[in-house]
């Protein structure tokens, strides 16, 4: 028999929407259907005839109601868990303010990712009600953003709830952040824009160091919500002003985030020269988190690639890959960076390793790039053009199309190199045929340029119309090995220096050491004294002799 009390309690609970993440039961009853079932069972007395059928029915219905109940229970338990997490975060924020340690705020922000998936309206409403003082204007505004979703909005005079006299700005902004993220996830972009604007105004007015990390996150979502509504250019002046303020206040996190947001803004509209100017004028703070640094390196790499500075671009992109966390969460970022770094490597004249393409996260998106690499490696121009036409749309959406167009020259270069390595002497006509060039004159000019650029080692004979390769030089007698070694050595040394700089010690640990050191010294002194006295005694004894 199903417990009637438990059923009543399910009815009295606040009407919670069904969680979208709850596991799908094979026979899910909607809320109203379940209610109807309960009411029908409570009201109508079961007739005694067909009792077996009815009992069977009841059993089936009851098991269904059981499942619904279980679901609701699970939902409420999950809710309670998330609420507990939020309260924990509030406590951490308070501690952060009390001790002015940024570690706690970092911890709070780290949990945001997992909380985000489990948020729903009721949790937020509950949290807001408990955190804010009774009649705060902010509270009612925040609740109004959520009010469309929840069913019944009662001003619950809940006596058990904590009623703080005032709310810490940190907690206030943290709740704003959560509501903003929630609206983003629900794709309510217009409300998101309004809320974001209000939050930004609030941030500008307060100047507390403990708010730095929170305000950096809020700027990020502010820009994101504008990006999703395609009105990015509107916020550019605001971001620029905010970046200036952040630099003045030495707010590293906000500074880094804002520079990255501005660069993203410029890239969205293809304004690369403005992005370049920003990079040259604004210094990126060294102490910003690794995530922001990884993004910054990627943007830098892109700018340099467009300006034909491929070596520098490649260095930046490699650093970006290393600084980003290497798990599946950052899959999108890794894909973007790897795509760009493959093209840049090709433009530098190196062939990227095959192992890159085999990584599980990257395998599918990198397939078009694998084909391009193959075409360039063989030096076949026709193949290259074909691949380009086939995957052209993908490249355009990745914004690497213009870079790949530049690869045409590389294909020809590789082709010429292959030919010069394989033939000791070959007529220009044959070169022209092999490389699918347009005419012999073309071939002559191209080969001459290749010789000048140092791609191949050969001489041309104009009258007889052929190219003659020189003998191969032993590479170990040149400077090549030294250059390669130097690259690796400097990379290792840089890595070492960076790791040393990144070491962190707890703040007051050295004081503890000092105390223990003093105690040690005391003991040593005593020991020394005893030994000294002991010796003197012995001496006395000796002298007595």
């Amino acid at each position: 028999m199903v417990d009637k009390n438990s059923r009543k309690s399910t009815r009295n609970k606040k009407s919670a929407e069904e969680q979208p993440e709850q596991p799908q039961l094979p026979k899910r009853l909607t809320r109203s259907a379940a209610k109807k079932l309960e009411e029908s069972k409570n009201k109508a007395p079961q007739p005694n005839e067909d009792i077996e059928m009815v009992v069977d029915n009841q059993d089936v219905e009851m098991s269904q109601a059981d499942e619904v109940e279980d679901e609701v229970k699970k939902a409420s338990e999950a809710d309670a868990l998330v609420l507990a997490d939020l309260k924990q975060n509030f406590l951490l924020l308070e501690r952060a303010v009390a001790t002015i340690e940024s570690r706690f705020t970092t911890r709070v922000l780290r949990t945001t990712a997992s909380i985000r998936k489990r948020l729903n309206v009721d949790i937020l409403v509950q949290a807001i009600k408990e955190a804010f003082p009774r009649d705060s204007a902010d509270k009612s505004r925040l609740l109004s953003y959520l009010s469309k979703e929840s069913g019944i909005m009662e001003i619950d005079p809940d006596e058990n709830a904590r009623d703080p006299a005032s709310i810490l700005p940190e907690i206030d902004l943290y709740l704003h952040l959560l509501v903003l993220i929630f609206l983003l996830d629900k794709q309510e972009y217009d409300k998101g824009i309004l809320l974001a604007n209000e939050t930004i105004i609030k941030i500008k007015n307060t100047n507390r160091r403990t708010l730095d990390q929170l305000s950096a996150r809020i700027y990020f979502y502010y820009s994101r919500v504008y990006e999703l509504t395609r009105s990015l250019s509107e916020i550019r002046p605001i971001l620029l002003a905010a970046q200036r303020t952040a630099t003045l206040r030495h707010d590293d996190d906000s500074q880094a985030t804002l520079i990255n947001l501005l660069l993203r803004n410029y890239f969205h509209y293809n304004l690369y020269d403005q992005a370049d100017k920003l990079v040259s004028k604004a210094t990126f703070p060294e102490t910003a988190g690794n995530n922001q640094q990884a993004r910054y390196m990627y943007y830098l790499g892109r700018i340099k690639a467009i300006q034909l500075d491929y070596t520098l671009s490649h260095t930046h992109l490699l650093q970006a890959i290393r600084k980003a966390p290497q798990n599946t969460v950052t899959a999108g970022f890794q894909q973007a960076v790897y795509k760009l770094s493959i093209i840049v490597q090709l433009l530098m004249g190196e062939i990227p390793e095959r192992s890159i393409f085999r990584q599980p996260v990257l395998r599918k998106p990198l397939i078009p790039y694998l084909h391009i690499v193959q075409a360039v490696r063989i030096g076949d121009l026709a193949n290259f053009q074909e691949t380009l036409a086939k995957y052209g749309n993908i490249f355009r959406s990745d914004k690497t199309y213009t870079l790949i167009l530049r690869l045409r020259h590389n294909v020809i270069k590789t082709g010429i190199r292959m030919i010069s390595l394989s033939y000791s002497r070959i007529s220009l006509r044959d070169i022209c045929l092999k490389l699918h060039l347009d005419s012999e004159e073309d071939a002559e000019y191209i080969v001459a340029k290749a010789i000048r650029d140092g791609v191949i080692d050969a001489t041309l004979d104009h009258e007889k119309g052929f190219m003659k390769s020189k003998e191969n030089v032993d590479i170990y007698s040149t400077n090549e090995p030294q250059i390669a070694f130097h690259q690796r050595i400097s990379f290792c040394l840089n890595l070492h220096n960076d790791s040393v700089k990144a070491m962190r010690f707890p703040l007051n640990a050295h004081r503890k050491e000092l105390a223990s050191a003093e105690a040690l010294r005391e003991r040593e002194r005593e020991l020394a004294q005893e030994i000294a006295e002991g010796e003197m005694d012995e001496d006395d004894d000796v002298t007595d002799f």
Partner: protein
Amino acid sequence: MSDNLEQTLQLYAILKKEFESPQPDLQKCGFYLAKLKISLSQMSLLLPEGEIPSPKELLIAREILEIGAYWSVRVKDIPSFERYIAQLHTYYSDYSSSLPPSPQMYPLIGLNLLRLLSQNRIAEFHTALENIEPEQLLENVYIKHPVHLEQCLMEGSYNKVWNSRAEVPAKEYLFFIDILMGTIRNEIASCSEKAYSSLPLADAATLLFFSGLQEVLNFASERGWSVNPTEKKIYFTTKDDNKVEIPSNSIIQHSLNYARELEQIV
């Protein structure tokens, strides 16, 4: 303000007539342009910011700037052309929503690209290329021309560049292509030095796109090639590759660096 506009409109009408006449007096055009620029800046249209003026004013300002750009090409004043293009850039990108597209936009953008190419500013060339939509890159004849040229330059097929002289989409392009020719002539010369051990004079003339032997001889003496008149050949001075110098400076610096870093390892 409004009579300023009236004056500007009048001046603009005179300028347009003068410029489009078959034998424009470029001096007078220059004079008008200077006056127009002053009046434009008085109406704060030269560098528009703040409130958006009426579309008609914007249109007039844009057309004046376009005529200015073409005029500077005719008088062969490259810095002034650069300035006009920079000013036009705001009109093309930021106000593209409020103004109808200008028919001169793509020719002028193409001209700008060509100018960057001829001055060998390839990085800026590519940055400017990014601003153009991808379809225009392949379709628009004004843009296709510099893009194609750049590819040929990168590959080194200079004869294509020479042939493109015949296919310019607009006659203003010829001016920049001539400058480009000078640049590539130097390029071809340096390529030939490395690639050939000797070259007959007649072939050198064709390679370097010279029309007469005398020009070849002048050029050869400029570059320091030795000409053998009896055989009619040019011999290029080959460098001695056998001696490989030890870059002592860099090796010393590297080694000192390594030593310092190693010592710092605790």
